[in-house]
């Protein structure tokens, strides 16, 4: 029998996070800082809207692109919060999580052998999705001294005649880095010059924290002059509305690209689950009325815990970049003399605290660990005490 598996798929290793999950799963009473989702449950009114919709018998397919009312809300939301303007009829597709949207954008735009620049460390699925779509990921190391931002010069240096796209994921998972308007404008100039497509993953856009740099203007990358025509904006409900398990995201972009994305979506997925869409609609509608109360309440709570975690790592003597977005700290653990892998494995085995090795997010993450501060304060304090002991013991 022949080997049926496509080598392009087989060559991609499973997520480094997965491996760690298996060890953690065997341990009871471990405290986990290894999660990548809010510790809030989806707000009650949102859950309730979905239940009502089920009870009302709303159990059918929706249009491929998603309920028009939801797309309309998304368009209004992006305009109100991020200065972006999209036509709900032609420029938005509602997807099964932001992950599907990323995959669609890459599959639509990449030709075999195309290169895609992505900041490293970065979210675990970018590089594999590029590979699955026939492209070649070109990781560009980002550094703590640059606050983990990718710079225009670095992009410029990585561009070849095969470069098709830039994945632009800010606020960033795992580093917590953010980009302000001026910095994004520099990126815009370089993508314009080299005629690149930008896949802007803005899933953490609501979660930025009160610092002079980020406080001012919240702006989508596509809202910068000239950028809409070359940007696919990716967002979703998981992080801002604590709706990870609902799997609801969306892509917005130029009509022609979205037309093709919808085609793959139509054939492969049909539509995002109706109840998730109804829930998403409720989330946006209600929050627009309340001044984004759900989002603000959660954001404030993350911000406090962000400060506590940063303070704790610095007290432990770890070098830690101050994250300004998402809900992760990304401390440097090189001073312990351990690799991230060793650090996390021993911390888990000896002190029952789960963190994720930084190199699970790309080579440049080596020497770091990702810790999530969307964690109960008391559990977090206990985790810090254990980590402190662990570091002392080295």
């Amino acid at each position, binding site marked *: 029998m022949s080997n049926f598996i496509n080598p392009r798929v087989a060559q991609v290793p499973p*997520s480094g*996070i*997965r491996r*760690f*999950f298996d060890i*953690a*799963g065997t341990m009871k009473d*471990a405290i*986990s800082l*290894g*999660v*990548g*989702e809010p*510790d809030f449950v989806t707000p009650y009114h949102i859950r309730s809207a979905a239940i009502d919709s089920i009870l009302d018998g709303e159990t059918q397919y929706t249009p491929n692109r998603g309920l028009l009312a939801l797309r309309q809300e998304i368009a209004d939301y992006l305009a109100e919060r991020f200065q972006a303007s999209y036509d709900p009829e032609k420029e938005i597709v509602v997807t099964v999580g932001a992950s599907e949207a990323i995959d669609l954008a890459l599959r639509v735009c990449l030709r075999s052998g195309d290169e895609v620049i992505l900041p490293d460390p970065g*979210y*675990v*699925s970018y590089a594999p999705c590029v590979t699955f779509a026939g492209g070649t990921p070109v990781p560009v190391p980002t550094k703590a001294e640059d606050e983990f931002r990718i710079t225009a010069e670095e992009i410029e240096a990585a561009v070849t005649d095969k470069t098709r796209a830039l994945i632009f994921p800010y606020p960033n*998972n795992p580093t917590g880095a953010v980009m302000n308007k001026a910095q994004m404008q520099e990126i815009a100039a370089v993508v314009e010059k080299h005629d690149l497509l930008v896949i802007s993953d803005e899933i953490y856009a609501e979660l930025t924290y*009160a610092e002079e740099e980020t*406080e001012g203007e919240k702006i989508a990358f596509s809202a910068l002059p000239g950028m809409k025509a070359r940007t696919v904006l990716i967002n979703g409900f998981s992080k801002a509305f604590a709706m990870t398990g609902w799997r609801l995201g969306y892509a917005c972009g130029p009509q022609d690209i979205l037309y093709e994305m919808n085609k793959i979506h139509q054939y492969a997925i049909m539509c995002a689950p109706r109840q998730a869409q109804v829930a998403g609609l409720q989330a946006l509608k209600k929050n627009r009325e309340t001044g984004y109360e759900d989002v603000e309440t959660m954001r*404030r709570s993350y911000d*406090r*815990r962000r*400060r*506590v975690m940063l*303070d704790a790592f610095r007290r432990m003597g770890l070098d830690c970049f101050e994250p300004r977005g998402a809900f992760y700290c990304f401390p440097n653990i090189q001073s312990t003399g351990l690799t991230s892998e060793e650090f996390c494995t021993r911390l888990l085995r000896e002190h029952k605290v*789960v963190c*994720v090795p930084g190199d699970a997010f790309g080579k440049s993450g080596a020497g770091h660990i990702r810790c999530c501060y969307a964690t*109960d*304060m*008391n559990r977090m304090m206990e985790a810090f005490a254990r980590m402190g002991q662990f570091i002392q013991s080295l």
Partner: protein
Amino acid sequence: MQSLKMQILEILSEDCRTPLERIAVMTGAELSQVAEEIEALERDRVILQYSPVINWDRTEKERCEAMIEVKVTPQRDMGFDAIAGRIYRFDEVKSVYLMSGSYDLLVLVEARTLKDLALFVSEKLSPLESVTGTSTSFVLKRYKQDGVIFVGESVDKRMAVSP
């Protein structure tokens, strides 16, 4: 941006044992600023007390509670305040609220036994001159109080590691 005062209140309402140092870290304010702000909140009687939410049912303490709907005759110039004052001064009374609707005061009473509670109503509360009627309901089970759920366990349903 929320004021420091509101941030402190939000933090303390979640956990009133949060140390000052941690509040300072959480808010990014100076320790002395936090201390001053809390002093002011106490002085202005915004913060009245720091007390835990206790599930007495899990202790050996014998205790029963009732909510009593009380109808009263308001007094000239004093409205309901004078009679409310008479009622809230009893040690057994834990809370008193002036209510809209079909009765006037809602009184939460705590005593050791049902009998003690009944006696409180018949001997202390009902005889008050302005009280024209009472309706007592005993608390059978406490599901949630002060935003804290008393039944079941809160379990983190997230996987230990996710991307």
